[in-house]
């Protein structure tokens, strides 16, 4: 096993987080989120006033999302060690994680369509803006399945020296539960369960970032140990 390739995939997570943050924060200003209660004119004005920043920000967000595939691959390699060969949980994680990358890319493309002709009918801009937000924050299913697969693989690790500590397994299960409320954003335009709300936007964002940090550290440790064992 080439440890250098594995470390490359693990470090790609850092690059992803940095570029995505630059895109979503200073460029598009999609952090903090748009309000679901905003009028069509207000939303259209956002795209008209910051057209090039939004286009560039979305270009970066979409552009770095492919790196998620590399990170998912790194998790897959670590899970193969846990399951001692590619078991069903490893494959579940691989496919769910890859779909997760798609679910990052598509909202960026939808928002890009909105920013492509910012002078069109504000109602259409509103439609596309809604579509992007709902696509990014509602589909918890792949993330939940991915996290449960990782959690169960860690807890089911029968190696004499487990690949990851068991608390990381429980952390993954907890993250899975935490993403579920996001799916209910479809019912709300305001309050903590709307897409701009604390339990759909802010908590998952912070937890997602924390999860990335923990997984990054644990994968790196696992790769270095595997490299030393060769």
């Amino acid at each position, binding site marked *: 096993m080439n440890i250098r390739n594995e470390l490359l995939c693990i470090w790609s997570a850092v690059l992803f987080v940095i570029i995505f943050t630059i895109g979503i924060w200073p460029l598009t200003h999609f952090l903090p989120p748009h309000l679901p209660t905003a009028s069509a004119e207000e939303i259209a004005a956002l795209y008209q006033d910051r057209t090039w920043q939004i286009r560039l920000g979305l270009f970066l967000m979409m552009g770095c999302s492919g790196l998620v595939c590399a990170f998912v691959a790194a998790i897959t390699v670590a899970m193969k060690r846990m399951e001692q060969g590619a078991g069903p949980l490893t494959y579940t994680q691989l496919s769910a994680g890859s779909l997760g990358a798609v679910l990052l890319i598509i909202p960026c493309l939808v928002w890009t369509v909105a920013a492509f002709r910012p002078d069109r009918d504000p109602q259409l801009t509103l439609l596309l803006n809604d579509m992007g937000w709902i696509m990014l924050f509602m589909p918890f299913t792949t993330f939940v399945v991915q996290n449960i697969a990782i959690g169960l693989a860690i807890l089911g690790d029968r190696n004499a020296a487990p690949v990851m500590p068991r608390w990381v397994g429980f952390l993954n299960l907890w993250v899975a539960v935490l993403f579920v409320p996001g799916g209910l954003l479809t019912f709300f335009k305001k*309050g903590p369960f709307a897409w701009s709300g604390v339990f759909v936007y802010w908590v998952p964002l912070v937890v997602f970032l924390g999860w990335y940090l923990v997984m990054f550290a644990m994968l790196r440790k696992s790769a270095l140990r595997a490299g030393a064992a060769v």
Partner: protein
Amino acid sequence: MSEQATRSHPHLPGESGVWVFILGDMLMFAAFFIVFMFYRGEDVALYAKSQLTLNQHLGAVNTFLMLSSSWCVAVAIETARGGRPRGAQGWLLSAMACAVGFVVVKFFEYSEKIAAGFTLTSNDFFMYYYMLTGLHLMHVLLGLGVLTYLWFTLRAPSAASTLRTLESGASFWHMVDILWIVLFALLYLVR
């Protein structure tokens, strides 16, 4: 969390890792409760008026079921410690029966509310009512899965590791119980 995990005295029930999940989950629900109380403070009249439509009897029955279930799990652990896995399995079944009862009561409670025209989007109080009790119900269903798993581990018990697994699962179940007690107080009783 790590502080909890590394302190070896007094005895920490279950394996330390499971407390990452339990404390994380309790943190999440604490956030729910704070947000609820904050928004309730903004419009006490609406919340108080909506609260009156809740069926306190069903809420109380569920509190009783939740407490009984927790007690059964505690007895199951004691029985398993005493080296009687079959007896422990019986207590676990009783705990599961209470949990199923909880789910059934919740089903009737929701039906009653929906029939009366109160849904998720009726007003802010009902948003919290359905979201918080719904997320709790999801935990009850998860817990039923955990209790079932515990029942199976007792079929071929291997002393120490089985007891540790039992304690981990029981700790989770007690958390589900505690969360309900707080929910019951906040949604049904607080004045």
